[in-house]
């Protein structure tokens, strides 16, 4: 029988032909934890009573979710991670290096055809560079850290073909929000999603990361794309390992095929308090916003900052509105500095914060006040996500976020199309 992308990757990593529904034991190419999960990874690893990790080079920890530390409890977790890093000789990305889902591929740890696990649900991000990557809990991660393996159920696959020509001002964030709104928060539960179509082909790798990043918001185990020239160029720039590009067989078996023509798509906004509560911008335009956040593993990459800067250039954030900008990594911060983007943000009265997760998880920066509305480029808008259950979070693209910051209310970035 012909195979999907995940069936091929699981076959390569288990040494036997894998098909959807099989339970396999797979070799893990790389795994990592962040500061919200690594404390428990370390505890679970200790319980396994191992005196060494399986491979020092195939694991790292990243301090990004609550960095710099806002309190003694978090500092204790960070300290525990630093001690573990020294004791076992594993790499630690400390405060200010950036957000895990950009750092891991940027540092060259992932290439096409890999099997990657992360103790973070948005590990599905690297599907954009043709890797099977998925989020697991701390104990599953500890087992991979100790043994280099874990067990997997090979998922069925949904094929999504996304065609059309997006209007100016409409981006990959709008595409993935539209799809999540259509399929629902559990529409792809336990499934692999393969993304195809003109729109995907025309996207940059940065834009593709945004789409794969949010696959978990429809319940998917991974959101994977075939590698093309752009992918190979990207991975070769960052990783010294040879990419093993994996394509699905033309007659692979899919549990579902969904086709979208998104020509003329409006900017999309996920409204409180679920990611699948998606509206066209026309239906939410004018909603008052108190805080705008541009950043995260979804939309904190260079291209995202460039788009936001095009709109913000020469403009000021509306009085009373806070605009927080968090580059996804130190490298991106440096590039943004060189390109003059940081000047544009500061001149627009934004607060540019250290690389990391920023206010997304609500544990250390930008916590909302009661009744405040936030517009964020993050991937989740759950009640309480930004630290206060009495705040409301709207999600959208960096362009919509920038237009919204200037107006102080949800605004259509297509008004700036001449700049984009």
């Amino acid at each position, binding site marked *: 029988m012909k195979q999907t992308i995940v069936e091929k990757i699981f076959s390569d990593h288990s040494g036997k032909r894998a098909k959807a529904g099989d339970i396999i034991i797979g070799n893990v190419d790389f795994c990592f934890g962040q500061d919200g999960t690594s404390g428990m990874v370390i505890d679970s690893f200790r319980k396994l009573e191992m005196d060494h990790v399986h491979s020092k080079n195939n694991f790292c920890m990243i301090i990004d*979710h609550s960095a710099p530390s806002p309190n003694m409890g978090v500092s204790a977790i960070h300290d525990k991670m630093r001690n573990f890093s020294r004791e076992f000789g594993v790499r630690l990305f400390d405060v200010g290096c950036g957000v895990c889902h950009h750092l891991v591929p940027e540092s060259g740890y992932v290439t096409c055809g890999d099997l990657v696990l992360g103790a973070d649900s948005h590990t599905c991000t690297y599907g954009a560079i043709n890797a099977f990557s998925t989020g697991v809990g701390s104990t599953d991660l500890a087992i991979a850290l100790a043994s280099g393996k874990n067990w997997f159920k090979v998922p069925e696959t949904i094929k999504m073909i996304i065609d059309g020509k997006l209007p100016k001002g409409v981006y990959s964030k709008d595409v993935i929000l539209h799809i999540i709104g259509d399929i629902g928060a559990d529409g792809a539960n336990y499934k692999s999603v393969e993304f195809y179509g003109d729109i995907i082909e025309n996207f940059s790798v940065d834009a593709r990361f945004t789409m794969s990043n949010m696959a978990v918001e429809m319940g998917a185990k991974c959101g994977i794309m075939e590698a093309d020239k752009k992918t190979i160029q990207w991975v070769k720039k960052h990783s010294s390992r040879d990419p093993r590009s994996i394509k699905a067989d033309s007659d692979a078996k899919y549990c579902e095929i969904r086709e979208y023509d998104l020509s003329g798509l409006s900017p999309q906004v996920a409204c409180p308090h679920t990611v699948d509560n998606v509206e066209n911008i026309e239906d939410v335009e004018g909603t008052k916003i108190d805080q705008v956040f541009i950043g995260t593993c979804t939309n904190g990459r260079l291209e995202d900052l460039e788009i936001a800067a095009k709109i913000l250039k020469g403009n000021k954030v509306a009085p009373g509105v806070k605009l927080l900008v968090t580059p996804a990594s130190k490298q991106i911060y440096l590039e943004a500095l060189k390109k003059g983007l940081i000047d544009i943000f500061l001149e627009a009265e934004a607060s540019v914060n250290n690389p990391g997760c920023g206010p997304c998880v609500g544990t250390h920066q930008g916590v909302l006040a009661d009744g405040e509305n936030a517009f964020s480029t993050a991937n989740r808008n759950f009640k309480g996500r930004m630290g206060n259950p009495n705040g409301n979070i709207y999600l959208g693209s960096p362009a919509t976020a920038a237009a919204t910051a200037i107006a102080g209310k949800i605004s259509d970035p297509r008004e700036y199309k001449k700049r984009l």
Partner: protein
Amino acid sequence: MTKKKKETQKMNVQETKTMETQKEIIPEKKTPKYAHRLKIENDINTDYVISGRYKFKIQDPKELAKHIFEDLEPDFGAKIKSGDFLVAGDNFGCGSSREQAPVALKAAGISAVLAKGYARIFYRNAFNVGLCLVECDTRFIDDMDELELDIEHNVVRNISKGINIDIKPVPRIMMEFLKRGGVIEYFKEKKGFEGLV
């Protein structure tokens, strides 16, 4: 002492004995276990189970347990007694991979979660830490219904409503983890997962 009085005394003694016998039986009789339902039914995410505010601050599961579902219903956790059940609709445990979520539920005394379906990361995490998840039609379970879970016979008995609800058999792999208290105990005993495939 008159004969009558003696008889009364005798009866009292007998009654006391009977009561004592009953008392002895009481501990053997199962304490009733109740269902707990949140006001929202579907897509209950792990941020709701335990907010990010606490997952970073607290590493003690018993402390975490005090804050479950705080952003949705602040008093919810206090109502749960050891052995009770959490009941929900579709896609329970979606969102963040935080393992603090099943750990906090277990520490709160939840013996099993009953839901129509689960998100995948939470599903693995729960069994990995020894928390039982049951898939079944939860439409006929109301908040505070008395329940009995019989995993061997794949049934949950709703004592309050007098009905039996079929449950989807818990996968063999997950039962292997559950009966040992979690995946770590399995992995150490079997020295890997080779026995699973």
